[in-house]
């Protein structure tokens, strides 16, 4: 902590003012959390999260490590289900349907809610197969021509087509880090999800590759609802329309990104975005 740091206010002072809506909600709601708690065993990692994420905009989650932003991201496609001893209470609805209701088909859910991780994780297969694989597994592969068309479409959407179109059969592992990450985005897009969750998608990339991913995010929001977790405040400011700031498992402030970075309402947010703590 810096000697010039201001005193961090108590969490109690912000909890009661938690904001579920940004100040100018315009697009319809896509994802809605209501009093959501999340537990790793007995440890509560998320507490009373209530917020509505809008359709076809980019929403960024920011906050210091361990604040719960990635945990919250992973509740949206029930990725946390695979961790033993975890538990969710409260509501999480996508298009108005509770995704934690009994009988929800988790595989079908994850098809609608795609995810891209911090570390690119292409399969040790060809570029083409990396994308076609998901189509086959999800029973979405039609004729060979259909699959080829879908592969091209996805690679174009991920702004990778021009770089790989002449070597689709070479190993995906031969691509650069930035290209691998865009391949993973293409792979996620191939099954035509509605929402794209991105967990620090550019944190392992150089500035040029990062810029390409950011441009991609900007283009993709026309079609997809995007939620991005990022440690880079500048990245959140550059790519997102709305920003949610998490601290100690709670949502402190959620508003338009320009508002968060010019005149945040909460002192905690102010202290975090100006680098006074975290």
């Amino acid at each position, binding site marked *: 902590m810096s000697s010039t740091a201001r005193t961090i206010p108590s969490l109690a002072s912000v909890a009661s003012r938690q904001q579920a809506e940004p100040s100018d909600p315009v697009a319809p709601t896509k994802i809605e959390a209501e009093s959501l708690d999340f537990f790793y065993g007995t440890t509560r990692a998320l507490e009373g999260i209530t917020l509505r994420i809008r359709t076809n905009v980019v929403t960024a989650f920011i906050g210091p490590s361990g604040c719960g932003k990635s945990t919250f991201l992973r509740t949206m496609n029930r990725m946390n289900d695979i961790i033993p001893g975890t538990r969710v209470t409260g509501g999480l609805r996508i298009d108005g349907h509770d995704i934690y209701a009994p009988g929800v088909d988790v595989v079908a859910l994850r098809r609608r809610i795609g995810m891209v991780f911090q570390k690119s994780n292409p399969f040790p297969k060809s570029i083409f197969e990396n994308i076609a694989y998901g189509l086959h597994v999800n029973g979405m592969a039609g004729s060979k021509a259909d699959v080829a068309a879908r592969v091209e479409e996805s690679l174009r959407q991920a702004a990778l087509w021009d770089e790989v179109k002449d070597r689709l059969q070479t190993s995906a592992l031969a691509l650069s880090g930035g290209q691998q990450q865009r391949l993973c985005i293409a792979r996620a897009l191939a099954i035509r999800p509605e929402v794209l969750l991105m967990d620090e998608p550019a944190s392992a990339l150089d500035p040029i590759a990062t810029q390409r991913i950011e441009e991609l995010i900007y283009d993709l929001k026309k079609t997809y609802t995007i939620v991005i977790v990022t440690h880079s405040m500048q990245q959140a400011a550059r790519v997102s329309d709305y920003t949610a700031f998490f601290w100690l498992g709670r949502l402190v402030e959620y508003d*338009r990104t320009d508002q968060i*970075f010019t*005149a945040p309402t909460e002192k905690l947010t*102010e202290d975090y975005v100006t*680098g006074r703590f*975290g």
Partner: protein
Amino acid sequence: MERVVRHFQEELEALQGRLLEMGGLAEERVRLAVQGLVERDTGLLDGVLQHDEPINELHIEIDNRCFKLLALHQPVATDLRAIVAAVKINTDLERVGDLAVNIAEAAKRYLVHPPVKQLIDIPRMGDIAQSMLRDSLDSFVRRDIGLAHQVLNEDDELDGLKTQIFRELLTFMLQAPATVEPALDLILVSRHLERIGDHATNIAEDVIFMVSALDVRHHAPTHPQA
């Protein structure tokens, strides 16, 4: 992060210090220009006319500091508002320095003639303009919105005095055409002092924006993004 923030904070404090220095210089020059006029001291007026460089140098230095802080630290929220305010305050202070020169020039022309009248309202305007300038800079240093609002209110008094001076001098000019030239210079001086008040008002408005993110310019309190 810690070291970087401290470095940024120190730079911000240095910027604030230079702005205050510039404010002090600008205020002093206004004081000397008005004093030179009232006491008919051309030596004081020459001093104002000849020593414009320190303010001009500070004007450039402060702008450069702001550019560097913006480019290197990409400040947000209150830090961003502080630097944007500093850029604007810097311009206002430089203009105040120029207006002090304008006052000294008009005063020198005025002193060539016999006095039109005893100067009462002009030194009063000078006092108010300087006090507004001082208060606006104090409100900047202390992040004091109350004091900034006080500066905004004082501007009306200055405007009233300027109108009063104009009317009074108009009667002198109508009665004695020989007073037209020096009276016009006094009207100009009152106009310059009124402009100094406007710059102090701008500074106070910038302080309110910096502290509260409220844009109160043009009498319309709005949020910048509203």
